[in-house]
């Protein structure tokens, strides 16, 4: 399922370098993501995985390199412009709007699909109401897809962590993205919640056909789901390949377990 080789990659990340003062967070990483591919990025803590996501979503600006998404350069664009191009993400530590309900959080995912301006909003009747009702219907489909019905009207701050992660995935899906970035979707979850999330990620691929970049520490999940894996360490690429190859790659083993003593 590595996608049609004749199609251009949806994302091309070329030799990107990002440094904070002396710390090189990303030090020359290159990869690409095929249309409808599930691409995983793994590596020890502090390896630069989340920095890659922050470069992609426009939160950080790299000093060098090139990032092109669906044929357009992402560098120099602001986060909301990148979101409009069709790039959606979730965060390692859930970044939901805790005071808002599940419905409102998902409606916020629809933000750039709702075209009316402040003046129509003030009047409400007519244009604004039509758009709200239509987008509410779209959001309800996602609630149905992720089985969030029973929490619909609760403020997300009151929900258990596993459900919050699912709501955040829902908010990203509500954006109707062309590429989905998942930052540790099962981090801190128990076995049951992890299995639920794995099922949703598979559903996203099969029913919605959205390519995914997955950053995750749960190796079982990565090896089961990913088409290709990129291993990074200290901001540098260690290896790229199919899950089976990566598992036995000597460099990868060294990055995770340390130098093998030869004496």
């Amino acid at each position: 399922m590595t996608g049609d080789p004749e199609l251009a990659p949806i994302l091309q990340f070329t030799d990107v370098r990002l440094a904070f003062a002396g710390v090189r967070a990303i030090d020359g990483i290159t990869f690409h993501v095929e249309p409808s591919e599930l691409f995983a990025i793994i590596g020890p803590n502090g390896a630069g995985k989340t920095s890659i996501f922050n470069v992609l979503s426009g939160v950080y600006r790299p000093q060098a390199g090139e990032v092109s998404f669906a044929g357009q350069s992402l560098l120099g664009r602001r986060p909301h412009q990148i979101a409009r191009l069709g790039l959606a993400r979730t965060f390692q530590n859930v970044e939901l709007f805790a005071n808002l309900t599940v419905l409102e959080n998902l409606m916020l995912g629809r933000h750039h699909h709702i075209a009316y301006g402040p003046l129509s909003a003030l009047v409400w009747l007519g244009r604004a109401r039509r758009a709200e009702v239509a987008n509410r219907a779209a959001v309800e489909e996602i609630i149905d897809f992720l089985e969030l019905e029973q929490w619909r009207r609760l403020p997300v701050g009151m929900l258990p962590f596993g459900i919050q992660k699912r709501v955040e995935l829902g908010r990203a899906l509500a954006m109707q993205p062309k590429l989905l970035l998942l930052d540790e979707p099962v981090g801190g979850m128990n076995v049951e919640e992890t299995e639920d999330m794995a099922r949703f990620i598979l559903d996203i691929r099969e029913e919605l056909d959205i390519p995914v970049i997955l950053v995750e520490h749960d190796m079982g999940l990565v090896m089961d789901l990913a088409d290709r894996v990129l291993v990074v360490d200290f901001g540098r690429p260690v290896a790229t390949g199919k899950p089976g190859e990566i598992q036995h790659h000597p460099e990868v083993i060294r990055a995770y377990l340390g130098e093998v003593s030869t004496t």
Partner: protein
Amino acid sequence: MRDSYAGRLQRRATTRRPLLHTSYRSDMALLNTRAKRYAVLALLLVGMSLPFLLPDAFLTELAGGSAYAIGAIGLMLLTGFAGQISLGHAFFAGVGFYTAAVISGDPDGRALGFGVTEILIWLPAAGLVAAAAGALVAPLATRLRGLYLAIVTLGLVFVGERVFAQWSAVTGGGSAGRPPPTVRLFGYRLDADGAFTKPQQLFWLMLVLLVVFAVVARNLARSNVGRAFTAIRDRDIAAGVIGVNLTKQKTVAFAISSFYAGCAGALFYTTVLNVNPNQFNLFLSVLFIVMVLIGGVGTISGAIAGAFLIALLPRFTDALAEWLPFISTRPQDVLNDSVTRFVLYGLLIIGFLLFEPRGLVGIWSRIRNWWTTFPFSY
């Protein structure tokens, strides 16, 4: 289609079970339960009949409370929803007031005036000029956050106070002041005794305007724009990543909030005879913040409740001075009624922040929950 089987079913479902919504539209309606509809209707009827029940002095205070409430709703949109702490609200109220006063002012008077006394002209103009001023200040908010924005907007009030005091052609000067805008609605003079007394007419005017401004603000709050405001308030980085244009939404928030402030400034002083430019000082800004805090951050009804509490506080301190012999009504005494009022403002802020951070709305929702779960309330 009304007589189809499905239509009959739906009609029966909605008439016999009013809480069952069969369309997103009815689910998302502002007054989506029967209880809310009746409560709002009752509140409006009581409000409209108050001029026949209360003395004129009280009505004047309530009219002022309505004008305050319009201003507080504006600050609520900016601070309570969009999370941009602004101490500059008094400045925008001043801009609105002087716009209205100049447009409706006496052309032969001491200060500049164009003699257009129709409220339907000077009120929107006051709001629009203030909104333009707000939009000009908004770029600051895109660069600064939290306390830094508060400090910069504080500077705005000081600059504004100085300009208002010096620009005597418009404001009448620091010591003299100028009369407030004249209120005519379709040619009928409202701020002079006519078919009803001046306080009665102004009270009705302010109440109707408050309802309009509140409904419109509520619409904004529940719309895509209002959701974007709360997103910026709660997590601005995540808001950007999901597609909210921070610069644009902060500008919209500042402009709309200033529109409300401008209208409030223009309306509030119509009950008095002369307005001194030092009215639009830091204290007025702080008063608006107090209304928002006491009412309950993040709710339009909270802004209204907070505004009326502040507007009626003088009445309370006057009553207190009557009952407590150590509070005097003479201005030269240390503990007089206006000092008591300031102390009460302070105590109210501290008390609410400590014991009920959700404000008056929080108290109300607690009472409501107690009743809905009765007799199993804990």
